[in-house]
């Protein structure tokens, strides 16, 4: 179960794509962290994640976890964004049979899952083919 507080505190990332940029070395973290893994700096400024990227890895989920059974089959990939940040996300509105590593994709705001039958509707980012 996700729960309301747990869902609410991730909203800056899931709705607004807010990342933390280390003021010491410019490395961007998504989600933001307290300590930079590159220079161990602890000062960050808030930046917005790049919207476009390319598929670095992907799979098609045929056996879905609970909360996603009605969606399968669906594609999930690791997307390398133009600012160098990588995220895991669904790739949707695409031909599953033609999806390939290197495909250009763009971020959209979508419904991601439902937290049980009476729980929260959980939103966030998915990616769609660009072009």
């Amino acid at each position, binding site marked *: 179960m*996700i729960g309301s507080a747990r869902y609410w505190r*991730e909203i800056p990332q899931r709705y607004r794509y807010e990342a933390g940029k280390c003021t010491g070395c410019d490395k961007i973290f*998504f*989600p933001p962290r307290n300590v930079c893994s590159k220079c161990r700096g602890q000062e960050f400024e808030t930046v917005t994640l790049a919207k476009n990227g390319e598929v*670095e*890895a*992907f*799979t*098609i*989920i*045929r*056996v*879905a*976890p*609970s*909360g*996603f059974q009605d*969606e399968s089959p*669906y594609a*999930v*990939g*690791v997307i390398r964004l133009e600012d160098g940040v*990588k*995220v*895991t*996300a*669904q790739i949707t509105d695409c031909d599953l049979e033609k999806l390939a*590593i290197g495909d250009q994709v763009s971020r959209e705001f979508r419904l*991601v*899952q439902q937290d049980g039958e009476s729980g929260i509707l*959980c939103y*966030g980012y998915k990616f769609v083919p660009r072009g």
Partner: protein
Amino acid sequence: MREVAVIGVGMNRWGELWKKSHRQIWTEAAIEAIEDAGVDHVDAMYVGCMSGGLFVGQEHLGPLLAEQLGMGPIPGTRVESACASGGLAFRQAYLAVASGEHDIVIASGVEKMTDVDGGAATYALSTAADQEYECYQGITFPGLYAMMASVHMAKYGTTRKQLADVAVKNHYNGARNPLAQFQGEITADQVMSSVLVADPLRILDCSPITDGAAAVILVPLDYAKKMNADMVVRVAASAHATDAIALHDREDLAWLASTQVAAEKAYKQAGITSKDLSFCEVHDCFTIAEVMVSEALGLFDRGSGGPAASSGATALGGEIPINPSGGLKSKGHPVGATGVAQIREVMMQLRGKAGDRQVKNAHRALTQNMGGTGASTVVHIFERA
């Protein structure tokens, strides 16, 4: 630091053990290890268990299991590092003996996975990945390894058939292991036509859901030599390394950096190279995992683990047999027990008691136990003393 030896092993038949509870499975293996070692007590107990809480609703396993063994009030410690919990429990036991804190220690692992349905088991296993930024998006564990496979195939030309050959080889070995969950051989065609779970991985690329436990007894090497043990096996190296838990936070998705780091430390400690090993027991939770581990351990060049799996090099009788036990794939994968069961197999092999799956002239072996998608790795090297 004192030198450490392993002198006793215990393990039950693995599978869907509906008639046995978590604590019964564990105590069976623990008693067998104590009797095999010929000791009348243990000074401390370590147990690897990934998720007693989610699988059977039971935490606080240190005191529970120590008392069930009739050994209370000894210190009992539960160790967790996802699927590497067992290997890490052994390492804590090793450090306890090496440091001089304890003399006779039991290292063990247990998981009781079939008291919950498939959905709940899948959820419990998924807690080894990043809950907020991987699992939230609908990825599963097979899905994460499938993404690693997609990169390995694109980058190095690893083929679907090469992955299938890993499963075929491990089931061949497991068919010769009387304690394995699945003791039947399979063909590459069967693997490649089995149901898709997460492309390109199919159900026969995946290790199963298993109930099981394993235990071993550690003592100082000097004690072992005086104890007239059946065969003294020395712990030549113990190493542990970590990496980012989320796959997307790693630069190269087709490389297991934690395994490379742990293996390099272990080879240095033991004063050997990968060429000096008789065989390896590695963490083949999925077929692609064994391919990637074989590269990160330095057994084969980067990107050539696939062709090596198809060449027979890793089969019994090959240049470096991998998973003579049948591996996680065929022996089963009760997650917390797996790392200890690898060590039990090494003991059976080094004692020359592995029956139809015996590696000829086995004298030195490596175990590699991995948590999550490789965010934690524990490597040990053992040799006949």
